[in-house]
């Protein structure tokens, strides 16, 4: 069976591979590239656990046809640290106890990063909007909202 060649940037590294028709980006990242930070939660676009950034914008990798990222830059949670240093959002999530089971956390962090990259000082309402496509069943959202706001203010004061 013919496969389609595909090249894109994955967390700053060029990758080239062959994919089956109809394969989604989440499968490419997890099964073919071994980057398991984006999670499968629904495959329907409803939970946000698979959120990644494509050219800096939040996308649902489970609904992204692999071919659609040809030549583009894909960023996952695996790529947001600077060397060994946690991203301010990662620090704020940890300090704010904004994760319990941890399964929604990668998607939450990427949705929050997409927000802060464009809007470094968001209002609470803007944070709520930014994570509105991400389901968390454990925390009740409050610690997550607070963590994003804390990350924003820590970056402002840094």
């Amino acid at each position, binding site marked *: *069976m013919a496969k*389609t060649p595909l090249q894109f940037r994955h967390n700053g590294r060029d990758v080239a591979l062959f994919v*089956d*028709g*109809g*394969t*989604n980006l989440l499968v490419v990242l997890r099964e073919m590239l071994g980057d398991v930070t984006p999670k499968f939660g629904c*495959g*329907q*676009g409803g939970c*946000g656990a698979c*959120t990644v950034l*494509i050219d800096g*914008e*939040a*996308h*649902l990798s*489970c*609904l*992204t*046809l692999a*071919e*659609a990222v040809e030549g583009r830059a894909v960023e996952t949670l695996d790529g947001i640290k600077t060397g060994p240093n946690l991203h301010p959002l990662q620090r704020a999530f940890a300090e704010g106890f904004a994760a319990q089971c941890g399964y929604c956390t990668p998607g939450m962090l990427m*949705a929050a990063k*997409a*927000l802060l990259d464009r809007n470094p000082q968001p209002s609470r309402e803007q944070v*709520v*909007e*930014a*994570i*509105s*496509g*991400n389901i968390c069943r454990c925390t009740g959202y409050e610690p997550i909202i607070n963590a994003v706001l804390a990350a924003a203010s820590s970056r402002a004061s840094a």
Partner: protein
Amino acid sequence: MPVTVKTFQALSEAASALSSDRAARYLGGGTLVMRDLNEGDVSIATVVRATDRALQGIDAAGARVRVGAGVTFARVLAERDLAFLHPAARSIGGPAVRNMGTVGGNLFAPAPFGDFTVALLALDGMVSLQGGFGLRDVPLEEFLQSRDRHAGALVVAVSCIRPASADAFRYRKIARIKPKGGSVITLAAHLPQSGGRVTGARIALGSMAPTAIRAKAAERALEGRPLDASAIGAAAGAAGEGTAPTDNSLASAWYRREVVGVHLRRLLSGQES
């Protein structure tokens, strides 16, 4: 058999690939077709894509604005000239869905989705279709009534009128979940006024029938009258006429009929939902 992905530069080629293959689906932003594939819908054997720049165009210069079918809601939100469509675009999905979902795809979204289409319907929307026969424009209302028969055609763009003033167009989505949830009822109203009276009102409702529909009785109740409490009350009273809501997991048909007038009244009188 894996799915075959066919990518075309020209719209006409994509359209003919689509119309010649019953197992082909057109992939826009992915939020509908990729979901079906993920869920194991084996009726889809071919995915058709088109890279034609016409799909991405936005022409907001004239009295009618034209938006390519491949334009995402995020792009609508980034376009200052489309500010009147921003509330509708913002009511869809979370940010990631808005970065993917397209204006064209929204025309095909089954309930409880398809809110942007409600706004277009109130703004005299037209659909540009590319078929084997070439390009033609179909009124959105007509398109929605025969949506399933358009499966083989390709939507190139949608167009709608620009409201006379910012206040002349109102949009509201009633959802259980905040800030984002599926539609209980979606309402859009275009209320041009001339000499203090409403002329050519168009009111569209989502989730009140299998597809977005116009609330024509409510439109008639406003026609030629000042937008005052009495006219609004009459329109609210007529809001349910001609609708055919169904039960779904978000609300029952009874509930939708019961509150559609309340929400229309609040929308028209500028009250919070």
